[in-house]
């Protein structure tokens, strides 16, 4: 069945499966196996289920919490982890706190809904660390609203926005296309290029009233009216007001990058922004201060959240990132003592040493509980550059700072057997010290530090059950408690497992006139996938002559066999058509992509790098095709993470 669905020959699949599971041969618990994936795994309408499957496999094999184990994402940007940690997604606040819904009429209701209660399956006790949610949330509110957040006004909880619907990326553009979203701030995101179904996104911008773009270069979004296919006449009819703000590049700003291993690494300014360009925080601060001034002078429906927002920076119109980082770490608002740490007092105004000190009574402020401990009274922990590795395991505890609590491997209690002895003594991470009656180790134990092994507390302390989730509880996932194989929304075959429900029943498809989905019966018989090249970084390196020199033009990778059948020679132009659009570029004929036997059918796949568009050095010289690759891809999204299906859709190909 695996062979029928994936096209991987049976013997090859078994060989790989045998190799991966061989680490536990004969009950050997010493070895660890890792799964490292690029985010292509997530770019399917069943992407979350793929990641779930990997997690289940690792749980069953005992590869979680182990040095050299885990499910590790290679993320697409240097700071995607940081963006997610800091709530750069519509449905979470910093530290993965949930965002309130309209039904959360007060703080107590919200906390009751979002604070999990422990559940204790069988013999396992449960730490249920998320039971601290009220401390994290109140401290977050105190960091936002300071003195305006008081016990009697629910710590300003009513100031927070309540999210009534899905505002994820693809939805937002759909709302704009349907005329409901009237304006867009685009910072560091080339919206036209990055989302699926570019044509629809370009048309959506035509309908917007205004667009603010903060970028290093003029890009496809800030000049969407120059998209191929828009005539001079059409251009004259576009009434969108576009404001372009010259931003600063990564080397012109300090601050942190948070990598996939959760390390906060401070970086320094290499050179000042050129000309009139400004750093992001100055641009945002100036807009905010202007908006606040307008609210102050003219009032408004609900000015309190704007007027009361904490903005106590030395330079209000250009807050330093050091100050922001300290604010995120959190500080004491009153003298604090902790029963578990007798004799230690954190004085009011001092930086907090970690999230264990957070309070739900308004005596602490913290912008993101996970980052608490990153900038303490001892200084900026993320600026540390210690290269010592005392355990020899590659822990490097003094290099930068890893959330949570500078812990390098999460759930590391699972690296020990139930009695608290490491599965592999040679590579021991943490262990139970009987003499000291606590957990100690080469890494910071990810566990209740004084919980005796005999107490049987589960190692997965962030789950209310305390154990790993092979079968997920109700409503944890939109598409069910256990992974299931679905075909992409556009697939060359019907799902051999259940042809009547071929694809994910809860995957989101859109209904606009431009959201069309193709079938093999209509002639869309080639599988297409999109990807990046190592030579380019998304859409802006095409403004750098060096990168353009490395890969000067867009191309379509075509399997050699398919090229032979169709008489396509390398370097000649081919036309790729999906139900949504057309893409023309030169063919790169390669032996690297081979035909697959999918459900008994010889199936070809082609690949298109996503970088080129209609703005850039080669583009401006008229040297490339000008089409965004995402003109082809469908707006169909995973129901959990809302990631579009870039990694498998249907096209046809012909000589152009």
């Amino acid at each position, binding site marked *: 069945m695996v062979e029928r669905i994936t096209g991987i020959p049976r013997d090859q699949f078994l060989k790989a499966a045998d190799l991966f599971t061989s680490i536990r041969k004969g009950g050997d618990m010493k070895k660890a196996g890792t799964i490292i994936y690029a985010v292509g795994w997530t770019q399917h309408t069943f992407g979350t289920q793929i990641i779930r499957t990997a997690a289940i496999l690792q749980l069953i094999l005992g590869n979680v919490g182990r040095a050299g184990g885990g499910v590790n994402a290679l993320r697409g940007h240097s700071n995607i982890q940081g963006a997610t940690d800091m709530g750069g997604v519509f449905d979470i606040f910093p530290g993965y706190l949930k965002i309130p819904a309209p039904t959360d009429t007060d703080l107590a209701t919200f906390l009751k809904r979002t604070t999990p209660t422990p559940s204790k399956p069988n013999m396992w006790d449960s730490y249920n660390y998320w039971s601290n949610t009220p401390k994290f949330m109140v401290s977050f509110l105190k960091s936002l609203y300071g003195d305006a957040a008081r016990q009697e006004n629910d710590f300003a909880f009513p100031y927070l926005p309540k999210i009534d619907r899905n505002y994820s990326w693809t939805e937002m553009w759909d709302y704009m296309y349907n005329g409901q979203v009237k304006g867009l701030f685009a910072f560091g995101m080339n919206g036209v290029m990055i989302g699926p179904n570019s044509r629809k996104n370009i048309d959506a911008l035509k309908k917007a009233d205004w667009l603010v773009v903060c970028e290093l270069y003029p890009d496809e979004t800030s000049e969407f009216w120059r998209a191929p296919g828009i005539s001079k006449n059409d251009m004259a009819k576009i009434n969108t007001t576009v404001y372009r703000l010259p931003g600063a590049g990564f080397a012109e700003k300090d601050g942190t990058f948070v990598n996939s291993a959760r390390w906060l690494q401070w970086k320094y300014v290499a050179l000042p922004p050129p000309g009139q360009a400004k750093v992001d925080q100055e641009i945002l601060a100036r807009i905010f201060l202007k908006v606040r001034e307008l609210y102050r002078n003219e009032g408004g429906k609900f000015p309190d959240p704007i007027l009361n927002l904490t903005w106590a920076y030395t330079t209000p119109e250009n807050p330093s990132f050091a100050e922001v980082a300290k604010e995120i770490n959190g500080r004491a608002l009153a003298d604090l003592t902790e029963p578990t740490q007798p004799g230690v007092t954190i004085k009011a105004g001092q930086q907090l040493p970690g999230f264990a000190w957070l309070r739900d009574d308004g005596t602490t402020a913290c912008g993101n509980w996970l980052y608490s401990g990153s900038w303490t009274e001892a200084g900026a922990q993320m600026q540390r550059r210690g290269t010592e590795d005392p355990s020899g395991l590659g822990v490097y505890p003094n290099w930068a700072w890893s959330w949570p609590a500078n812990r390098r491997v999460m759930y590391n209690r699972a690296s020990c057997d139930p009695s608290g002895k490491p599965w592999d003594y040679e590579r021991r991470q943490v262990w139970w010290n009987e003499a000291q009656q606590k957990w100690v180790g080469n890494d910071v134990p990810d566990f209740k530090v004084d919980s005796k092994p005999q107490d049987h507390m589960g190692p997965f302390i962030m789950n209310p059950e305390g154990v790993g989730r092979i079968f997920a509880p109700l409503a944890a996932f939109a598409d069910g408690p256990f992974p299931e194989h679905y075909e992409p929304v556009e697939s060359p075959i019907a799902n051999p497992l259940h042809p009547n429900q071929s694809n994910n029943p809860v995957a989101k498809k859109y209904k606009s006139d431009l959201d069309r989905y193709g079938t093999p019966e209509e002639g869309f018989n080639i599988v297409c996938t999109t990807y990046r090249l*190592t*030579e380019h970084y998304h859409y802006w390196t095409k403004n750098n*002559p*060096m990168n*353009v*020199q*490395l*890969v*000067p*033009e867009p*191309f379509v990778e075509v399997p050699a066999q398919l090229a032979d059948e169709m008489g396509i020679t*390398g*370097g000649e132009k081919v036309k790729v058509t999906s139900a949504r659009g057309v893409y023309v570029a*030169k*063919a*790169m*004929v*390669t*032996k*690297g992509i*081979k035909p697959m036997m999918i459900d008994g059918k010889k199936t070809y796949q082609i690949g298109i790098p996503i970088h080129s568009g209609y703005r850039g050095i080669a583009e401006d010289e008229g040297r490339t095709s000008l089409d965004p690759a995402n003109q082809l891809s469908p707006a169909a999204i995973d129901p959990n993470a809302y990631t579009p299906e870039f990694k498998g859709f249907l096209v046809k190909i012909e000589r152009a």
Partner: protein
Amino acid sequence: MSDERTLQIQQISAHPGTVPGQGAQREVEVAKYIDVTTCIGCKACEVACVEWNDHPFRETTFDNTYQTMPTTEWNYYNLIKFVEHERDGNFMWLMRKDQCMHCADPGCLRACPADGAIVQYENGIVDFQQENCIGCGYCISGCPFDIPKFNPKTKKVFKCTLCSDRVGQGLEPACIKACPTGCLHFGTKSDMVALANTRAKQLREQSGFQNAGVYDPQSIGGTHVIYVLHDATQPELYGGLPSNPQIPPSYTGWKWLAKPAGLVMAALGLLAVFFHRVAVGPKLPQPEEPPPAEAQPDTIEAKRKEKP
């Protein structure tokens, strides 16, 4: 390197015993070791090379390949050659970083007729000194790896310097610093050969590449850039790496035969001049043309006066 050697201590005042480090063997020969099997073809080395050498950007064209351009150029010293290869029916990329090999016996240097245009340092780096280059291009034909390239504008020849300017300051070459996978290494020649051999053994014993080996061709005395190849028996697969590189015989001949022969000819010429002088005597000054008739008596008169 030279600094280190000149500042080596010879004597120490009032010091009991021998001078520390005296007689110790010092490694001066350097090498770049390229593990072709862990290269991902990202071209970071190409960029680092262009940027360190402050080269202008070239306009390139798409040519049905990931390879940036067909060959290295006078302002593009470092190029990854991309080869699509099938092994037991499975596809694999062969990606080889191509640049000057810094041969122990450099064909370019042998071929070069210009005094001081090509030097080989004691550390093994072969470096072109463009101020002495006469642009004859002999080095190009002398190279078994097709590396030196002519700049038609300046009429000089250029190639990878192994970042002799960086290495001289104790830094690794720019390409090494930029490599994100660690497939590029730099150190003493013996360390690099040892590291490469270890890797080749690992590939043979653990990764199923029975023919894995180190490329350090002895036909030119070894090189200061060495490779680990999945299949060292077929270096040609890797974008035309010669299995037995040779300096063209005209240049080896020139050095060992033609040049002495030329010297002999020159000596013979000098001898001929000498014997001609002895046998025929010196060439006397001759009047350019006979003097006019009326002037003759004066001359005779003058000669007469000279006589005592």
